[in-house]
């Protein structure tokens, strides 16, 4: 008789007593994650979500911030008003200019620096350079703004004097529209470029040296190896930097605008954030400011979502 080889079935002994369940012990085990999350959730609730909901409701009222004054329901009037104000459109344009300018500092400059310095500086020199370029990030924005308003002062400011030596003096940096916008972007860029360089360095460190070695053996020049290998592999970092630019530019620029130009001259440096602030707190038109903030918030959501989606799609390149 021919018999097929049968798999052996081995059975664990049954009828062992089940371990006792302890309700409180298991509950206590599940607690720590929530405990860790609580402080952050409380802070976010109080300082992010509550104001968000409040401004969402205030957008439909007319009110001047005084607790003693009544809030008047005006429906969509605030939105209609905001959308017809030329100042809003100018603020949008300025915001766009700021974002473009900052993209140069937060994406262009560090990536170009990475390409130029690839494999050239090591050890102490590199650490020193990293530290030097990162210091402005740590300077408080208000301090930076005040400092630069002295440096950029007409008639005797250091920048004015230095440029004077080059025959380019007599620029009234903070008073003429073009130079004022440029000054805001330059100061913001000076302040943030260190962070971007650090992020790019981290991104480069994540790229295995073997890819570049393979490219070198494959006969690629340094230029080609940067464009065809390093940059594509760095693309997740580049997208991250674009998102960082989008998210960090407004809060960095706000205190600088406030201390350098106060939005002037004639609104030339007022971006959408400063516009909301001026409307809300200087003109005490809470309804108007809230409506603008809500509109901007809604317009921002798809932009950020798109960025995050792009980042997820590129993340496979990391390894």
């Amino acid at each position, binding site marked *: 008789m021919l018999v097929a080889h049968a798999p052996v079935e081995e059975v664990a002994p049954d009828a062992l007593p089940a371990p006792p369940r302890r309700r409180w012990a298991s509950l206590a085990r599940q607690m720590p994650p929530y405990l860790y999350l609580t402080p952050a959730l409380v802070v976010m609730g109080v300082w992010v979500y509550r104001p968000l909901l409040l401004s969402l409701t205030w957008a439909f009222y007319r009110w001047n911030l005084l607790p003693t004054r009544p809030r008047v329901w005006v429906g969509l009037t605030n939105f209609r008003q905001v959308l017809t104000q030329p100042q809003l459109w100018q603020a949008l344009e300025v915001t766009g200019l700021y974002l473009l300018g900052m993209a140069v500092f937060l994406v262009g400059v560090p990536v170009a620096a990475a390409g130029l310095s690839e494999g050239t500086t090591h050890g102490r020199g590199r650490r020193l350079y990293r530290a030097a370029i990162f210091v402005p990030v740590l300077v408080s924005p208000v301090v930076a703004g005040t400092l630069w308003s002295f440096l950029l002062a007409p008639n005797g400011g250091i920048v004015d004097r230095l440029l004077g030596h080059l025959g380019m003096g007599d620029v009234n940096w903070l008073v003429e529209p073009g130079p004022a916008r440029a000054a805001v972007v330059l100061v913001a860029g000076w302040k943030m470029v260190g962070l971007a360089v650090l992020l790019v360095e981290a991104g480069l460190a994540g790229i295995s040296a*073997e890819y570049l070695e393979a490219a070198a053996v494959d006969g690629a020049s340094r230029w080609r190896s940067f464009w065809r290998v390093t940059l594509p592999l760095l693309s997740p970092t580049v997208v991250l930097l674009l998102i960082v630019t989008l998210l960090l530019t407004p809060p960095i620029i706000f205190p600088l605008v406030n201390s350098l130009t106060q939005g002037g001259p004639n609104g030339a440096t007022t971006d959408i954030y400063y516009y909301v602030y001026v409307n809300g707190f200087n003109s005490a038109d809470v309804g108007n400011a809230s409506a603008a903030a809500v509109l901007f918030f809604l317009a921002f959501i798809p932009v950020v979502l798109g960025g995050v989606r792009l980042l997820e799609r590129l993340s496979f390149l990391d390894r």
Partner: protein
Amino acid sequence: MIGISTRRSQTAPPPGDGRPSPIFLDHVTHRFGHIVALDDVSLEVKAGEFMVLLGPSGCGKSTLLRVVAGLIAPTKGRVIVGDRDVTSLPPKDRDLAMVFQSYALYPHLSVLKNIEFALRAQRLPRAEVEARSLAAAEQLGLSGVLNRKPRELSGGQRQRVALARAMVRNPRAFLMDEPLSSLDAQLRAATRIELSELHRALGTTFVYVTHDQLEAMAMATRIAVMNRGRIEQVGTPGEVYDQPATTFVAQFVGSPPMNLMPASIGSRSGKVRLRVGESEATLWDGDLEPRAVVVGVRPERLRRGGERGGLALGVMVRSVENLGSEEVAICEHRGERLLWKGPRPIEVMPGDELVLHASSNDLCLFDPASGRRLMWVPDAAPQERPVAMASGASLTRRG
């Protein structure tokens, strides 16, 4: 005129002419800080040869390969590929192809683009790039996956893409850094055979780094065994296995490794005799002064049956390992471990006591101090003592 043409060939070789080139390493030393990774290494890799650099991790074999590739500049010494001194040339001008341990396939490029990369870097005509890349892909059975990204491939396919990427260049030599180490055992064995066939088909110089002696034995035309930044022995797989130049080679090559035992050697009535414990073996006719040696014998050379004139070693079996086709008995001889390998079943049990015999022809003698192999010079020259074999010395003298 001759001067100019030589000069041209030194600076701008015709890329990818595929002439298999010899590679010479001339007194190459490399230090990382205080660590000497390569210690005055000289080696000739003949044109069309499959040279395997074999050694334990940290022995400098990968460093040596990288020096050849130009990824590391040696502290001292020269690297010559064909008739060009390439020591100061960047990797891209050396016309060598390299397969990395991790394959280093560009993750953002498709298989085809990966294969084309080197040819595109050379700015060859579009049609030629495509034709050569498709041919290489075809040869390695990658035609079906040309549009996939590396992450969508199996380990074996990635390995083939890495090979195709090297092959398409038609380089002067292939450099391979443990290319099989991330494959599973079955695939590794299959790929080993394919690599040997590829080498035969291309006829190009291969320099192949591995720590796996089985790989080295299976594929190499010659093996360079490395240890601590030096080359211990260069030879065919047979020479390295049968006549290890040092105790290191004896123990590194072979699985299980060669048995080494302290012994003494002397002569009585015109015969040179070797003594291990109470056992004596007659080696050669002649006279010499008594001295201590280390005697080595391969585990599979030991026999249970007796032979006259050989070494008879009384052992006790400690345990038995079943390797499928063979069994290894881990025995104890005079307090030291002695391995005996034989076709299964070898029919011993732990605790058994038996006598194992080794024929005189299967014994290797080493100098206890230097670890170098001792060889008998049979004529009646004034020097009647065994002389240390100076393996590698002939290489070091070249230059």
